[in-house]
């Protein structure tokens, strides 16, 4: 039994056989896990060899017809490489040793390629490239099939991978993928967020661990604690089976909360809104009991296709969300991409920055590309006719920046007016408070904006100078750090004095541990990952404002993050013993 720790991103417990996807550019599983075993994998290997031979034969024929025998000869050499007895023998030996054909092929050919490379000379270096090319062809065939397998699963598995892209995550078949765990990634990675939305137990950022998994071992993924257990012993298995069952009944009980009002024991209403990225999420988010959308991330419009989204693309997406929430707030955050993730058209203009978090991103990008920005604002103002749409600018760091963004909005209003296009004029304009400079200057900002939304993810990253996705420092990322509480306090006070609303939309607000504190500090509105809504509602319904204020007052006197978090954890346990029963 081995225990691996990572970051808990999607709660729940899953138990089942491992399916390992590999670590390189190609996702190469190290070991195979299918019950059908060695013969099955040998057959896959030979089928891939045949397929590659077929490809090369076609190329050989084409070359012969078009270029002559001389050029065809190179392909016949390649054919011989594919049928090389050493290659076949070494790969077969490795497969008999339970290595996956993908891994075996890439190891064997990789070693030959490296040997040729090391011998020096251009000729052999080029032959080394030929071998690398052959390796790629083989992997394409082997993995093409494997990818299919992932979407055509017939029995439940836990997917273990170096990384899963957001699109791979959304394509996971929830019926058979019971949970997943990845080596990289952090709390705020899109993959983590999607896992939460899909309610698949998941742990990310474990660090290197795939090499420790072999055979068709049983794996436990504890998405609540961020633990992955490889080959658990009988006791552990029994314990987790039990908690898997408890988790299920807990989920059922929380589900029944969705119809009850979201208010404290002393009758103070708290609004919990949802964070979404795709318009398709709006409807399920409503089912979870969301009182609106507090953060609609519009980035997927830019990343999904290679072309820039048109005004109509934006408009349709916004209307779809408003349709699910016709009478409730829907807060649209304008483009929040950066130099690490750039919309297609701008990729060439901005080579990847050394320090993307401090570079051209978010509102800075919008203000440098007014056409891009105006397209989005036009669509938002037009869609606002159909509901309570609000616009929010991300990453505002100075007053000037906010004023510039508002000026662009005024231009758009004028344009729409001149063109006689229907739109709503009195759309509330707010900002994310996620840069320390903005939190410090909250008083001045509060005079000019309609609402604040505390983006704790970036606020913490910038305040503590920690990238949460970076394994080396992830443990320094602490939501409970007193500096963060002080920032929040400053923003809340400024909002109160200027009579504007303030909500929290970062991951911190989805964590029940921090909820009593934030309510005690005076926050009455939250925007959270939809799956967290029922749990947060349960906490709220067990809380009084007086109690929350006491908790906040005490927490704000503590000096280090650990003490704050321990204290809040203890208070939550007292408030909602059922909630913690899951641990």
């Amino acid at each position, binding site marked *: 039994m081995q225990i691996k720790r990572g970051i808990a991103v999607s709660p729940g417990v899953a138990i089942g056989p491992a399916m390992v996807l590999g670590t390189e550019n190609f996702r190469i599983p190290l070991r195979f896990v299918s019950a059908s075993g060695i013969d099955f994998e040998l057959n896959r290997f030979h089928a891939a060899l045949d397929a590659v031979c077929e490809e090369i034969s076609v190329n050989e024929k084409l070359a012969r017809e078009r270029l002559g025998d001389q050029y065809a000869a190179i392909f016949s050499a390649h054919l011989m490489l594919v049928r090389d007895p*050493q290659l076949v023998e070494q790969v077969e030996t490795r497969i008999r040793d339970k290595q996956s054909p993908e891994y075996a092929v890439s190891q064997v050919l990789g070693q030959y390629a490296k040997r040729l490379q090391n011998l020096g000379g251009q000729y052999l270096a080029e*032959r080394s490239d030929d071998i690398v090319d052959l390796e790629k062809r083989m992997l394409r065939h082997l993995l093409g099939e494997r990818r299919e397998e992932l979407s055509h699963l017939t029995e439940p598995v836990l997917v273990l991978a170096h990384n899963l892209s957001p699109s791979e995550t959304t394509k996971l078949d929830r019926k058979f993928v019971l949970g997943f765990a990845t080596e990289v990634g952090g709390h705020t990675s899109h993959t983590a967020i999607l896992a939460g939305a899909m309610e698949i137990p998941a742990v990310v950022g474990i660090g290197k661990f795939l090499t420790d998994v072999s055979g068709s071992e049983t794996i436990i993924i504890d998405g609540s604690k961020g633990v992955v257990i490889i080959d658990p012993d009988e006791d552990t298995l029994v314990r987790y089976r039990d908690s898997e069952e408890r988790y299920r009944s807990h989920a059922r009980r929380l589900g029944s909360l969705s119809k009850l009002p979201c208010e404290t024991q002393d009758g103070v209403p708290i609004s919990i809104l949802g964070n979404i990225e795709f318009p398709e999420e709006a409807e399920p988010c409503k089912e979870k009991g969301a009182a609106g959308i507090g953060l609609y991330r519009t980035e997927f419009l830019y990343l999904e296709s290679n072309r820039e989204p048109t005004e109509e693309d934006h408009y349709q997406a916004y209307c779809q969300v408003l349709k699910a929430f016709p009478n409730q707030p829907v807060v649209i955050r304008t483009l929040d991409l950066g130099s690490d993730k750039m919309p297609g058209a701008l990729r060439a203009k901005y080579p990847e920055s050394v320090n993307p978090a401090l570079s051209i991103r978010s509102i800075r990008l919008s203000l440098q590309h007014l056409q891009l920005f105006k397209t989005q604002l036009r669509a938002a103002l037009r869609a606002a006719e159909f509901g309570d749409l609000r616009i929010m600018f991300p990453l505002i760091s100075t007053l000037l920046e906010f004023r510039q963004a508002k000026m662009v909005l005024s231009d758009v209003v004028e344009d729409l007016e001149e063109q006689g296009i229907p739109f709503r004029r009195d759309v509330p304009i707010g900002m994310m408070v996620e840069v320390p400079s903005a939190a410090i200057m909250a008083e001045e900002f509060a005079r000019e904006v309609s609402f604040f939304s505390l983006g704790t993810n970036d606020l913490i990253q910038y305040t503590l100078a920690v990238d949460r996705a970076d394994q080396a420092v992830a443990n320094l990322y602490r939501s409970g750090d007193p500096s963060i509480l002080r920032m929040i306090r400053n923003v809340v006070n400024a909002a109160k004095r200027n009579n504007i609303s303030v909500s929290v939309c970062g991951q911190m607000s989805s964590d029940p541990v921090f909820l009593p504190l934030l309510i005690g500090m005076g926050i009455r509105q939250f925007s959270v990952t939809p799956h967290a809504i029922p749990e947060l509602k349960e906490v709220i319904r067990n809380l009084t404002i007086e109690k929350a204020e006491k908790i906040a007052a005490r927490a704000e006197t503590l000096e280090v993050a650990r003490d704050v978090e321990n204290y809040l954890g203890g208070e939550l346990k007292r408030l909602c013993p059922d909630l913690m029963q899951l641990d």
Partner: protein
Amino acid sequence: MSDAVIHRRTVTVINDQGLHFRPCQLIALAAQQHPGTVVLRRGTTQADAKSLLELLTLAAERGTDLELEATGPEANVVVDKVCELFSNGFHVPPSS
């Protein structure tokens, strides 16, 4: 018993390009006809002569001496064939 019989001969690369793709291919094709083992050695580096991949790793240029070794029934036949390839500089009629 026949496995125990080892046929060994030294061959020299005389063609300009050395053991490039085409010569390696020809050697491997010849060696693959033989049921026993066929090995080419350059110093301490040894290559399975049936394997194009391994032959390439000999990186044998013009003038290199290699030791050819075959075992199994009629190992002398395959040794003769491979020697001939080396001695005529891998010039074979394209029909083969």
